[in-house]
């Protein structure tokens, strides 16, 4: 019971802050709502006995990525989004389509059974870091190494696009 109430609290705040994040015109406000969102997602991870993921969520997303966002926003000095029209004449159609698809997915999900419904939990309490490390360096070693290549690709691409043009 208490578990459910805590879950409902986190879920509600996540939904509300996500909505506020994409509707604010001031980018700084959006980023702050995103911070709220990340904190509550970390809370959900704790509820699922995944403490390590919760810590990573806070350190990487809330700590590193968000600060980077704030820096970019401040450096580019985009404190106010340009007052352009957000909705054009297509938006009722787009919105209707989005609602339709979302309703369809919700209907399908409400009718299906999850493995977790049978009383199985996703992770055991207290365990996590060791299992994660072992899985990462044995079974998932290949994707772990490949993931580092993605960072390299992003780096090269960014440097290439941002560097100054050379004169012949």
């Amino acid at each position, binding site marked *: 019971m208490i578990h459910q109430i805590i879950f409902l609290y986190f879920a509600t705040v996540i939904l509300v802050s996500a909505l506020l994040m994409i509707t604010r015109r001031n980018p700084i406000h959006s980023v702050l709502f995103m911070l709220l969102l990340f904190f509550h997602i970390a809370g959900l991870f704790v509820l699922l006995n995944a403490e390590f993921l919760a810590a990573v969520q806070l350190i990487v997303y809330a700590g590193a990525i968000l600060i980077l966002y704030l820096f970019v926003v401040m450096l580019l000095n985009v404190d106010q989004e340009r007052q352009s029209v957000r909705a054009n004449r297509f938006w009722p159609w787009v919105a209707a389509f989005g609602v339709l698809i979302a309703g369809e997915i919700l209907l399908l999900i409400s009718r299906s059974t999850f493995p977790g419904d049978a009383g199985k939990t996703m992770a055991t309490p207290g365990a996590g870091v060791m299992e994660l490390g072992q899985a990462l360096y044995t079974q998932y070693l290949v994707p772990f190494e490949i993931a580092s290549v993605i960072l390299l690709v992003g780096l090269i*691409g960014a440097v290439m696009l941002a560097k100054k043009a050379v004169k012949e």
Partner: protein
Amino acid sequence: MNTAISISGLKALLPFLIMTAAAMVVMLGIAFRRDHRFTVLLTLAGLALGGGSLVFTPFAPDRYVTTLVLVDAFAGYYLALLFAAAFAVVCLSYSYLEIQGGHREEYYLLVLLAVLGAAVLAAATHFASFFLGIEILSVSLYGLTAYQRHRDQSVEAGVKYLILAAVSSAFILFGMALVYAEVGSMEFARIAIRAGAAGGALLGTGLVLIIVGLGFKLAVVPFHLWTPDVYEGAPAPVTAFIATVSKGAVFALVLRFFGNMDIRVGGALFLIFTIIAVASMFFGNLLALMQQNVKRVLAYSSISHIGYLLVTLLAAGPLRLNASAFYLAAYFVTTLGVFGVVTVLSTRDRDADKLDDYRGLAWRRPWLAGVFTAMLLSLAGIPLTAGFIAKFYLVAAGIGSALWLLVIVLIVNSAIGLFYYLRIIGAVYSMDGPPGPSMPISLSGSAALGGLTLALLWLGIYPGPFLALIGSLMQTAH
């Protein structure tokens, strides 16, 4: 199944290790000596080494390296195809970038890394390797598409590709999460078993979302809207790369992922793929009729070609893997050839993408016009070219599984396609073109085009040995 990587597993990963190492060597090479020719030679050496290592790679039907990568003959064939296509793209890029100014060396780094991503896709048997492969390929392509920063069109194409590829990745991820929620495994083999035996609603929703994401990458109707703009805006060799390496790798993954599933006639997946295939054929060909820009015509034509290819996914029996393998090889050769001609005709200021650039080409550059004509005829599927044999096998595979609707649509569309290919050929042989050749074609460009033409004629006139090779490779795959 062993979870750790053994020495024999490392041996099976040799092509991937070589491609990664090649990217590192090229990067260090640029740091020491910034020279266009030197970088290209290093890149070509890396690709050749990667292709050569396939001879020593121990392919086996159950050669899983952990559960993520399966290095069997199927993967081997597509790896060879991808490396060969990238080799041709690099040759063409050299002649294209040589006449452009500025720093050009980083381009080849991105090409090498994109090939690595494509190779991972061709061997993936697990959601983790599937997604990482897609991401490496896409992120490299963002940079390549926008490579010519001084052209507005190139930047526009890069931004469009970035946004749509990111959205499609989000679709794929959400689909994977739903599939995992029901199946409890991310391995293709286990998902296929569950999908065959009356999968639940979550699994179905997840699969549909994955199809949406993959549809973006393959540019099939109705997920094709980015294609003409990106094809038009990207530099010509990059367009060739997107049309061949990127789509070929994703199609290999589609064959691996959905090929194991029991796609029954009348089932939901069968219906979805049939609608996508028929719509891609018709929309691709009909919209191509209305284009004036050669690159846009080729973009729409590539949409319809992927539509043809989907017939092999729906067909049953062992022939379908042979048909798709041969069709992709023929499609690679012809597409690279056509874009190769566009590449060598491009000038420093713009790509040769107007129909007027080709008017009277036959009287200025007879050899080039001959190559261009052969490639276009092959795309249309005229006898004596590779495209004809490939389409023949496609129709044979379709009839073998009694897919009458798809076969009839395919044949009708081949006739429509002939019209716009012939319109370009007509312009090439018209008498009212501008006079005189402007500049000589570089050695690497003509070498690549010559090799592609030989491959086209070989596949079209004497396909026996190649078909036998595909047959023996694909037999062990399933």
